[in-house]
């Protein structure tokens, strides 16, 4: 039996099911990260002094990572647009660049974390580093999740393009929505933790 409304929009919601599903998931993600931002405000306003991010963190590296993520967001949306234009080869190129940029983000994060551990800055060192590792660690897990899903649609899952191109295009749109959300979270994490 076929799953209904994977391509056509449902008459009641005006959306295909996967799209409504990802937006509901993203709504829950807003609350997950919102809880952590709320904890950050609580911790920061509850003390007399709060360290500046630049005391512990590397701003140039984080700026580079920000540029990597926003570039990966545009390549992700370009991969979807390529499928809309029936250009599968361009989809492969853009999705591949997205994966590369996501991996570059992780490599930089690895250097950031390893440097901090090397000088003894663990999450238990103080509240700032505690919330820094919690928030960026959760974000890194989301990046890893995104890499796994994009990779799946880049190589093994791409076979669907041959059998059901519209459904495959919708799947890439859904992955893209998730990936843009991960970028969106970083857009707020970057100034909150590194610059303020």
């Amino acid at each position, binding site marked *: 039996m076929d799953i209904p409304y994977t391509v056509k929009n449902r008459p009641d919601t005006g959306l295909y099911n996967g799209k409504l599903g990802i937006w509901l998931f993203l709504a829950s993600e807003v*609350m997950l990260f919102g809880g952590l931002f709320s904890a950050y405000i609580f911790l920061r*306003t509850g003390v007399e002094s709060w360290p500046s991010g630049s005391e512990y963190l590397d701003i140039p590296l984080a700026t580079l990572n920000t540029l990597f993520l926003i570039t990966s967001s545009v390549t992700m949306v370009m991969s979807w647009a390529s499928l*809309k234009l029936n250009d599968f080869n361009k989809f492969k190129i853009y999705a591949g660049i997205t994966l590369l940029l996501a991996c570059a983000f992780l490599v930089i994060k690895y250097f950031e974390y390893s440097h901090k551990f090397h000088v003894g800055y663990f999450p238990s060192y103080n509240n700032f580093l505690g919330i820094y590792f919690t928030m960026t660690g959760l974000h890194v897990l989301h990046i890893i999740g995104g890499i796994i899903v994009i990779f799946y649609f880049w190589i093994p899952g791409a076979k669907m393009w041959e059998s059901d191109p519209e459904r495959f295009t919708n799947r890439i749109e859904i992955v*893209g929505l998730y990936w*843009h*959300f991960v970028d969106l979270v970083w857009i707020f994490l970057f100034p*909150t933790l590194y610059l303020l």
Partner: protein
Amino acid sequence: MSELTPEQVKNHIKTYVLVFVSLAFLTIVTVGISYLEVSVGMGITLALIVASIKGSLVACYFMHLIDEKVTIYWTLIATVVAFLILIFVPLSAILDHTKI
């Protein structure tokens, strides 16, 4: 976004490039603000305003919220209300603590 013609998609691509350039520029602006000699409160306000503009660009154009179905808007309105409550819980605790 499923009923787009190839011409419309090509127009979207131009928008994506413009949004990307704007995001890169605003990232530099965000870093620049952190070096300004302003009070902590002003620095936080400016940085969050720029972050909100960047976030809106991503949501409106990359996530296509600017021309989405009303079902998604209602979902997001409910989310934003719940998010604001979550953010204002610690702020209300501060007001209580300082007896304002």
